[in-house]
């Protein structure tokens, strides 16, 4: 034993510095130094011990590894530092130092090997366990997939990119009627169907190329038995781990029922259930499609059966329906083979769409054939029924560009055919249509015009021919439109009669006229002027008409005896029942009844006798036939005068007084007076004018007649009624 004693603290200090940072040790410098001081103390003690015990140095080596000095540099530096501190202790200790270093290194290596093996074991076990867990998860996922695949209600198939089918499930087999082996043997391309679009298969190609990942389509298949299967097909692209396309997975839902239902509903939506013909909706679709071709000239024949309602009413709806079915089928058989579309618009209306109507003659031929077809007798339940039809035809070049416009024109044209006497073809006429449209527009404005008081009255004096005194006036209604345009009654009274507005308008006229007469009389007194007001047949048919007249008289305080209502000859002649009673009631009220425009109709004087009529107003032609230039029928002026004379005579015999209208010349005036006509009215005597200008003329001889001497001839006593 000899040399210096070794200081463990000094060894630990150098040791700490030497190994710091060589390995990861979870200690700071101070803790590390403390730890190494413990190890250094053991080493020094072992070095100095009388009995050499290798296990101490080996244990120090193990403790280094335990502190995680796992880097070989840590050992290298440790051995260097140990040698540095222990070597000077004495040459005689060289073998002990070598043994100590050897034991330390051996212990270290042993521990490191154990640690390494243990860690490798642990990480391998962990990796193995994690892999097992992952595989279990994958197996579970696979099992779930298999369960879904096998048990799915939707059909599933997996195909390679070359189209080879590698897997199909039971549902798909059931849908197609093949077993799995039969399907798997075929590439997907064998499942093409005529309804497939080229677009469908282009998408599949894009998918195989990897540019599309999902696609969805409605697709048809043939089942094994040849029937059709409709499916909602979704195809997804499965890629491999590198992102390359790998499989095509198809999911197929059987929508055959839904598809058939849709098809049926679509057919139902576009066809008429009674006749099976295309319906209005389909017709308009086709018409619009035809109109889209800007160079095409489609045309339509709009056909309406004549008298169909009578068939329904007399033979019953079943017969009516059967008739419609038969006619529909005949029209279809006759015209459809030539490419014309025959559709039912509803009720007894049919329409034929002629794709090329550029030749009007061709259109007419189609329409005539339709007419002939309808006219063929139809036997239904033992009845032989013959009906005809009216047809309006219109081509695109006349009827306008839009489908709605065209059909409106066709409707109008059909109306003309009906109006012109049925069982015929009418062609669209632009001018006539324009007039119709204008009339329609005017008629639509009437109610508003009445409300806004755009109507006003003018009065034309009625002149007693024997002395030229204006004994009354005829009220004439005018319309001053918002535009300032002034319209005579011929323009709007017929429209008012059609629409029924005549009732309200007539009521206003009556009240206004009586009110005016009352104001005149209030202003001047004397004999009451006769107020003569035109009345339309439609008014007389109103049940309230008598009440309306009474109300107008009551409101204005005008006596019934000073009111005259003018009806046309035809209105009176054709009036029956109610209207005649109305006339009687009016006469009982004291109102005078005049027959207007007498001589234009049948002029049945004998019948007149039975009616409560007081006055005849001779129509214009009677009067204009008088004098030079008169060319009224056989016998010229003389003949006319003879007829006129006898009419006046007959009227007087029946107790009717006579008014001549349209007195336009002095000569006419003179002749009428000499023929004993009671009253005259006309431009020669006085034109119609507003109340202010008429007022001074009333109750006195007209100024121009005061100078004209009364022509010779006997004076007849005017009839009173």
């Amino acid at each position, binding site marked *: 034993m000899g040399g210096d004693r070794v200081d463990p603290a000094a060894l630990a200090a150098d040791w700490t510095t030497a190994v710091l940072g060589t390995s990861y040790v979870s200690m700071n*410098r101070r803790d590390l130094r403390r730890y190494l001081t413990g190890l250094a103390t053991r080493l020094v003690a072992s070095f100095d011990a009388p009995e050499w015990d290798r296990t101490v140095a080996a244990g120090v080596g193990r403790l280094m590894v335990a502190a995680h000095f*796992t880097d070989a540099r840590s050992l290298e530096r440790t051995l260097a530092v140990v040698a540095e501190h222990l070597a000077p202790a004495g040459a005689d200790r060289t073998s002990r130092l070598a043994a100590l270093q050897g034991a330390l290194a051996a212990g270290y290596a042993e521990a490191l090997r154990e640690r390494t093996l243990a860690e490798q074991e642990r990480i391998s076990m962990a990796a193995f366990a994690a892999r097992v867990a992952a595989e279990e998860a994958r197996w579970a996922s696979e099992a779930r997939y298999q369960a879904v695949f096998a048990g799915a209600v939707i059909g599933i198939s997996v195909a390679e990119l070359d189209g080879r089918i590698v897997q199909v499930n039971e549902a798909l087999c059931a849908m197609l009627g093949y077993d799995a082996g039969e399907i798997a043997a075929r590439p997907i391309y064998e499942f093409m169907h005529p309804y497939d679009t080229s677009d469908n298969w282009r998408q599949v190609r894009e998918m195989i190329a990897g540019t599309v990942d999902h696609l969805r389509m409605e697709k048809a298949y043939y089942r094994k038995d040849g029937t059709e299967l409709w499916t909602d097909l979704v195809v997804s692209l499965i890629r491999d*781990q590198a992102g390359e396309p790998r499989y095509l997975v198809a999911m197929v839902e059987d929508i055959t029922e839904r598809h058939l239902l849709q098809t049926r509903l679509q057919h139902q939506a576009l066809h008429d259930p009674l006749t099976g013909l295309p319906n209005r909706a389909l017709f308009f679709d086709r018409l619009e499609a035809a109109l889209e071709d800007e160079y095409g000239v489609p045309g339509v024949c709009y056909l309406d059966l004549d008298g169909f309602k009578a068939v329904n009413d007399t033979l019953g709806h079943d017969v009516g329906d059967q008739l419609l079915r038969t006619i529909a089928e005949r029209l279809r058989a006759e015209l459809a083979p030539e490419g014309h579309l025959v559709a039912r618009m509803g009720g007894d209306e049919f329409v034929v769409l002629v794709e090329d109507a550029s030749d009007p003659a061709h259109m007419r031929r189609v329409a005539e054939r339709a007419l002939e077809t309808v006219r063929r007798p139809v036997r239904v339940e033992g009845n032989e029924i013959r009906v005809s039809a009216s047809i309006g035809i219109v081509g695109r070049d006349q009827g306008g560009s839009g489908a709605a416009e065209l059909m409106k024109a066709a409707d109008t044209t059909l109306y003309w055919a009906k109006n012109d006497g049925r069982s015929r073809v009418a062609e669209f006429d632009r001018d006539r249509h324009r007039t119709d449209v204008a009339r329609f527009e005017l008629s639509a404005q009437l109610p508003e015009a009445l409300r806004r008081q755009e109507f006003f009255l003018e009065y034309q004096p009625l002149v007693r021919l024997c002395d030229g005194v204006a004994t009354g006036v005829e009220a004439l209604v005018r319309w001053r439109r918002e535009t300032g345009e002034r319209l005579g009654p011929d323009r709007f009274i017929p429209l008012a009669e059609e629409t029924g507005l005549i009732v309200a308008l007539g009521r206003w006229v009556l009240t206004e006229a009586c009110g005016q007469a009352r104001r005149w009389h209030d202003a001047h007194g004397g004999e009451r002027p006769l107020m003569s007001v035109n009345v339309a047949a439609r008014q007389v048919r109103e049940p309230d008409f008598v009440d309306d007249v009474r109300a107008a008289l009551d409101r204005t305080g005008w006596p019934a005896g000073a009111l005259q209502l003018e009806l046309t000859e035809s209105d009176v002649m054709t009036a029956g029942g109610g209207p005649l009673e109305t006339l009687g009631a009016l006469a009982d009220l004291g109102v005078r009844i005049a027959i207007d425009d007498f001589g234009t109709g049948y002029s049945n004087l004998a019948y007149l006798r039975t009616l409560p009529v007081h006055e005849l107003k001779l129509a214009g032609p009677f009067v204009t036939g008088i004098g030079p230039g008169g060319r009224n029928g056989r016998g010229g002026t003389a003949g006319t005068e003879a007829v006129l004379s006898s009419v006046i005579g007959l009227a007087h015999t029946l107790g009717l007084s006579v008014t001549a209208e349209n007195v336009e010349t002095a000569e006419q005036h003179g002749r009428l007076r000499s023929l004993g006509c009671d009253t005259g009215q006309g431009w020669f005597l006085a034109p119609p004018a507003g109340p202010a200008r008429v007022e001074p003329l009333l109750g006195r001889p007209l100024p121009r007649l005061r100078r004209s001497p009364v022509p010779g001839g006997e004076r007849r006593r005017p009839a009173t009624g």
Partner: protein
Amino acid sequence: MQGSVENEGRTGNDGRADVPAGVDPTQPSVARVYDYYLGGSHNFESDRVFAQRVLAQMPDLVSVAQENRAFLRRAVSYLCAQGVDQFLDLGSGIPTVGNVHEVVHAVNPAATVVYVDHDPVAVTHSTELLRDVPHADVIGGDLRDVRAITGHPLVRDRFDRRRPVAVLLVSVLHFVGDDDGPADFVGEYLADAARGSHLVISHASDEGRPDASSAQAVYNQNRSPNRMRMRTGAEVEKLFGDLTLLDPGVVRIPLWRPDSPDDVRPGAELYPGVAGMARKD
């Protein structure tokens, strides 16, 4: 301590859930590579090959990993001294030496530690290691999915949300790209936490370190366990959001509260990583 997020670099495939990241020993794993840096043997050939490629770019990476591990020890010791006794270690990796629960339990054996990693091998290994350790658990999960982790039965069970918790994100956020909005989900972890809770972050940084950039590039090549996004100190500071950053702020990792001046070795001011700690007030 190393963990990682979803593997993006290897295949870029989002297809079948084949072998989870980390289970295939022929593919390197972030956790095992880090274990290798620390001198451990919890690694496979593929990990060591990859680690060597990184080390070729950045030879002092071994000491870098050591310093980072030492920071974790200092940070956890500090938190224990503050009385924090609940630790959520996100991206915990392969347990080596000086694990959080070891440091924590040395001070307070009753404290709770929950490790989280997405690498199934790391989780399996940790489970084995912690089998007989009370108050320490590990769960598998993706740290970006905050709700899944804070809602995990074990986390809900172990932690008392009314008391402060420490959330550790040590050497893991550089494996999260900007697309994942790290500031947002990091903030979520502390959103419902009690006052006095802490957030600890250490993060790789290549500021002033071209070799670190080269190492990052290796991670961003093929056959990498994970892409890497290094951040500057300023960027890391933003990850703390509006929490109160404790002294000395976000600094180079060796400079964060060293135990003694002796522990700060030369070159610390250019250390390729930064760290910081913040408190919720």
